[in-house]
């Protein structure tokens, strides 16, 4: 009987309900932390849309930048961004996917492989502006490419390479070993296994990673400013060896100007940038959900 009375200890019971209350308060607090993050996101989006909507017009797509906000557009910046993404993808995708295949399918378990792996992990943590300094020193000066699209694209390609390598490896790792063994058993070489089986099955996931990497690149500003991409370009870039500007740099330039009208233009530019990013992300999610094979 004495044990039962001990369990019905009043102070313990009161204490327990207090302890549970503390837990409940904490849970609500923790939930609010997430809500605060989401609220901040919504505030940012609403703020940008309210600022930018009055300035959003087709003129943005047809006009070059100008000293007069009513005449200014994003024509050269948008074309620069498209060129830059195209050239970056051209270099980064084959190299990144290739390196991913090597590390996951071919690489022997040795020091060199481990070194490369640590290297890739470390590169992912290097600030983007450092890539800009690399591009400035190596591509712009040493290779003498100048402040051209190709120098910018090479810099960007190096920047997104770790992302592509990591996502490619994850995609490839998800393909079960039985697939490889089945192909090897009927006499395929390791390259044929990769090309005809592993890559085919992991292609949607790789593509998802590539799209996400490119969406990172399209919003990057700092490395391109460092290599010397200009803010005022009043002609259409014609090829990889033309000087250029891109959308986020033009936005940066407009934000930096004191006149409120340019801030409105900047917000309009941000809306366009966010729509592009959102479409890329939606495409990536769609690809992941629709095409990825679940084993």
């Amino acid at each position: 009987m004495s044990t039962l009375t001990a369990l019905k200890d009043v102070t313990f019971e009161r204490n327990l309900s207090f302890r549970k209350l503390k837990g409940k308060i904490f849970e609500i607090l923790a939930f609010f932390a997430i809500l605060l993050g989401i609220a901040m996101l919504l505030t940012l989006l609403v703020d940008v849309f309210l600022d930018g909507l009055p300035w959003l017009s087709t003129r943005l797509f047809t006009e070059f930048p100008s000293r007069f906000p009513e005449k200014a557009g994003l024509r050269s910046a948008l074309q620069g961004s498209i060129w830059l993404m195209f050239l970056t993808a051209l270099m980064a995708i084959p190299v990144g996917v290739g390196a991913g295949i090597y590390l996951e399918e071919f690489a022997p378990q040795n020091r060199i492989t481990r070194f490369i792996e640590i290297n890739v992990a470390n590169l992912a943590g290097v600030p983007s502006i450092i890539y800009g300094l690399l591009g400035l020193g190596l591509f712009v000066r040493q290779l003498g490419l100048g402040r051209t699209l190709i120098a910018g694209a090479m810099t960007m390609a190096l920047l997104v390479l770790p992302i592509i390598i990591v996502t490619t490896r994850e995609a490839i790792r998800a393909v079960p070993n039985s697939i490889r063994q089945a192909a090897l058993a009927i006499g395929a070489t390791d390259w044929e296994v990769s090309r005809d089986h592993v890559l085919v099955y992991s292609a949607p996931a790789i593509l998802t990673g590539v799209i996400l990497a490119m969406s990172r690149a399209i919003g990057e500003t700092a490395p391109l400013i460092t290599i010397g991409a200009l803010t005022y370009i009043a002609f259409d870039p014609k090829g990889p060896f033309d000087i250029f500007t891109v959308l986020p740099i033009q936005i940066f330039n407009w934000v930096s100007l004191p006149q409120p009208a340019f801030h409105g233009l900047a917000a309009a530019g941000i809306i366009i940038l966010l729509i592009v990013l959102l479409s890329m992300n939606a495409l990536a999610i769609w690809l992941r959900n629709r095409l990825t094979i679940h084993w």
Partner: protein
Amino acid sequence: MTTTIHSLNPQNHLKRDRERKIVRALTFIFALVSVGTTAGIIYELLKETVLFFQEVSIIEFFTDTRWTPLFASKRFGVLPLVNGTLLVAAGAMLVAVPLGLLAAIFLSEYASERMRKVLKPILEVLAGIPTVVYGYFALLFITPILRDLFPETQIFNAASASIAMGFMILPLMASVSEDALSAVPRSLREASYALGATKFETAVQVVLPAALSGVAAAFILAVSRAIGETMIVAIAAGQQPKLTLNPLQSIETMTAYIVQVSLGDTPHQSIAYKTIFAVGMLLFAMTLVMNIISYFITKRFREKYE
């Protein structure tokens, strides 16, 4: 069935073997590009940094309290830039650490699977927004509010950049911490419940300490991201390198200085050109050390429970 017939042909076998070797060599070279990138970064930074230190003494660089390389009377004390960088980063961590940690605990300990699936991707969007957008938001939304609250706030100030950066880093802090919390084995939680602990007590006194190394790794990664962040501070924090701890004042970070010089037309051989590499070298070294520490912490904590 055609493949079977083909592969019986020895000529074909040789061709396939050659193709295999070429691809292996080529992809190996691709993998080496990453090593080349690191080597290139170190080489380019060191090259100009060495030239810089031929003109400026390393003691002045690390002890002088003025940074005025673009003025007539040039002083090369990097401390004000480091001060600005750390001030903004510290402010960002004040936002990102409590919120990120709370979010991580909620997602790993409290949220249902369905809730997690909705909340996490929304939170991740914060990390996907280009930093130039955060810069816009800091300068044109957060700063006016700060100036209403504290009238002495300067137009360009560390605080607004810190707040925007804090929310940008929040998902990183949250997701790396959450991974660490989720990796704590269920048996530890069950043992804690068996001793009569509530869910809150279990989460904070058992799970969190068990995941502490992972949380520490998340913290270091977040700091490293904060000190390397460029566009937010270039837009919102100003261009006045000074030794101050007042977040309402205009400061300049190391990254913002690099942007400032890059925007001007800096001649190749000038001292200003060399300064951005010297500052970049210091920034690279700082983030490298932090990334390495976080790498080893994560590695150790992973081994603990596997």
